[in-house]
């Protein structure tokens, strides 16, 4: 599949450049403070796995990164913009550069699959012929081209997630945020979704935040890569510097970063809390 780098991707040259940066972010609700001084950085083409139990603020972190919520304090910088201080009008423009895959897909239930995927292009008044070809392209990417005229209610849970991924990548965003993309899915469908995320990373070179409570999702992304030339998923060569090696774990606990490191570090950690995820 041809890679069409977005303008934002073209602007981001150095892999050391921070694409997503959280600095001392705090946010709370009626139930109390959820995130307390959360700080982390995701660099270009990096995949950051946000691991944590339910209620640790994974989804909240993604929504803050997408500018869907504002922190009580601290800074959220994405693609060089301080989004925590942007006005709603500017945020709408900013969000066009970010793909967001919601936990349950969040597809528009009154629109067909094709219309859902085409939504952002239609909003941008792209020519109909181009919309048609781009929608087919991304639906082919997620292997759901045949569902174009179906309604979301006619799809299975896994198919809905795949359509959601297609919708998120239709305008080739440099950043994709995944909110528990495998939650509630059977192991085989989960594997299909992870393979899709893996292909998206290795074909489009997106920077990603992936919230999950399943450690195996992170290890799959860290240990495998998709070779666009052979169109096959391969195991990563130890010591390589390819995209799979740019997968890091960020474990959230009590609203803070409890652990940040490579898959090997989390795998060999003696910490009792981290070991709970390894069981």
């Amino acid at each position, binding site marked *: 599949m041809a890679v069409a780098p977005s303008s934002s991707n073209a602007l981001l040259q150095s892999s050391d450049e921070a694409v997503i940066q959280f600095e001392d972010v705090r*946010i*709370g*609700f*009626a*139930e*109390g403070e959820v995130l307390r001084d959360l700080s982390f950085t995701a660099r270009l083409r990096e995949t950051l796995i946000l691991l944590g139990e339910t209620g640790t603020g994974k989804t909240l972190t993604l*929504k803050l990164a*997408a500018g*869907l*919520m*504002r*922190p*009580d*304090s601290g800074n959220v910088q994405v693609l060089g913009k301080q989004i925590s201080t942007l006005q*709603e*009008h500017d*945020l*709408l*423009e*900013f*969000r*066009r550069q*970010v793909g*967001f895959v*919601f*936990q*349950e897909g*969040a*597809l*528009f*239930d009154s629109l067909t699959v094709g219309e859902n995927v085409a*939504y*952002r292009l239609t*909003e941008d008044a792209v020519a109909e012929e181009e919309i048609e070809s781009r929608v087919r392209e991304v639906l082919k990417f997620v292997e759901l081209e045949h569902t174009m005229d179906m309604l979301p209610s006619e799809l299975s849970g896994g198919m809905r997630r795949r359509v959601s991924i297609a*919708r998120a990548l239709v305008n080739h965003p440099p950043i994709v945020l995944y909110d528990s993309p495998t939650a509630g899915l059977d192991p085989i469908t989960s594997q299909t979704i992870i393979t899709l995320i893996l292909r998206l990373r290795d074909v489009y070179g997106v920077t990603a935040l992936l919230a999950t409570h399943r450690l195996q999702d992170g290890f799959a992304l860290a240990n495998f890569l998709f070779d666009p030339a052979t169109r096959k998923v391969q195991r990563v060569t130890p010591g390589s510097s390819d995209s799979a090696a740019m997968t890091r774990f960020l474990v959230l606990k009590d609203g803070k970063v409890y652990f940040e490191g490579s898959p090997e570090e989390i795998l060999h950690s003696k910490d009792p809390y981290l070991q709970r995820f390894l069981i």
Partner: protein
Amino acid sequence: MNETPTQVVEQRIGPAETPSVYEVLLDVGKQSVYKVQEYAKLSLRSLTNLASAPRYGQDTIAQMDDIGVGSLPIVLLSGFFIGAVMVLQTGAQFERFGQSSLTGDVVSLALVRELGPSITGLLVAGRCASGIASELGSMQVTEQVDAMRAMGTDPSRKLVSPRVLASLLTVPLLTTISVFVGLIGGMVASVFSLRLNAFTFWQRAIAILHVSDLMQGLSKSVVYGFILATVGCYHGLNVRGGTQGVGRATTQAVVVSSVMIIVADTFLTKLALFLADKLF
């Protein structure tokens, strides 16, 4: 933007000790003021959005079809029978004084100034404010509104403004149709019940009307249209608590919009009568 720091500030957990009655009342007061403020902001934005692009013409037409054409059967039916029952009620009183020919005057004035806009407003509020609240509420709980925002679309432009504009345009039209059908209903009732001449009824019903009466009726219907659409949208977009929350929002939308229509009616009537004295 949802749940900004300023929006959650008043929801923060207070000190562990039991709050006093004064604190509870103060909190309730603050929440009420906050809700009114948010409603006012959404209502204002729904109008200011119309002044700039992007505008959603197709969505507006679809909403006009839903609100206008969809409400037509109930408006026609209720309008006809309200006109008829008005004649039956007033005609009986006028007959006592041998003035049954005045029935047309009274029914016409009542329908144009008051009953047409109010009954139409309440009926459309019952049908559409609930529909809007449940539709937007369902979208809210299934994260479709967030998905829209995540894709760079302003929900107030895409979801609220088309509904408000459609309602502003269709409720006055529905009111006009309702009044016309009500007069027909009144005419039919007066012919069969009071043995009045249909032509006399119709002639008196039209002759009694002044421009100020028409202005009063139409201006009321515009305000009612605005109320039912904005209240429906506000409650839909502020749903909390899943499907149960959607049900609650739907009920609240109908109750609040109906009460607001009745309250607004009093003030609008007073204002219209004052302006009629000054201008006409």
